[in-house]
């Protein structure tokens, strides 16, 4: 039984999902890597932005 923090869970999903998205959505290794990094950034970045939005809404 493991209990990662919310942010750790987000990072895990972002890493693995970005890997699959990069491989399946692009043709060449270089473009796969770039798209994977792009997806990872969007996953983590959007979560952080939305978290701050919810923080200010809750105040």
């Amino acid at each position, binding site marked *: 039984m*493991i209990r990662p923090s919310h942010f750790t869970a987000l990072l895990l*999903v972002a890493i*693995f999902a970005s890997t*699959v998205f990069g491989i399946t959505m692009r043709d060449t290794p270089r473009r796969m890597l770039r798209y994977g990094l792009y997806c990872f950034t969007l996953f983590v970045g959007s979560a952080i932005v939305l978290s701050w939005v919810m923080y200010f809404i809750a105040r």
Partner: protein
Amino acid sequence: MGTAANKAAGAAKNTNQGFVYLPLIAGWLVPGAGHFLLRKWGRGTLLAVSIIALYVLGLAMDGKLYSSAQDILALLGLAGDLGNGLLYFVGRMMGLGGDPVQFTVADYGTKFIEFAGLLNVIAAIDAHNLRTGRKQS
């Protein structure tokens, strides 16, 4: 020139032999297997590691494996779980993921398992596209 053209034609002929849906089915049953069949070893390994890791982490977080569909949400969860192929059936046979979700992390784990299944479907379809030539490389 002629030799290169012959090689290309031979390679195309080799990739068009056999059951065209085999990479799709193999990729669904075992994550990465569709790409292994097409000799995409690196991609297959990365896909297998990513999908299996998500599935195992989901179970380790006490995630739930859906066994029946009482309502529409459970039906969608079951569909996502079934995307894991043999991993789902092995997990069910071993009695894993049978406990009801009682805390937040377990709910995350349930989503991890569903997400792994959906990613596995994407990977299997990618293998099929490589097999049919819809995706070039």
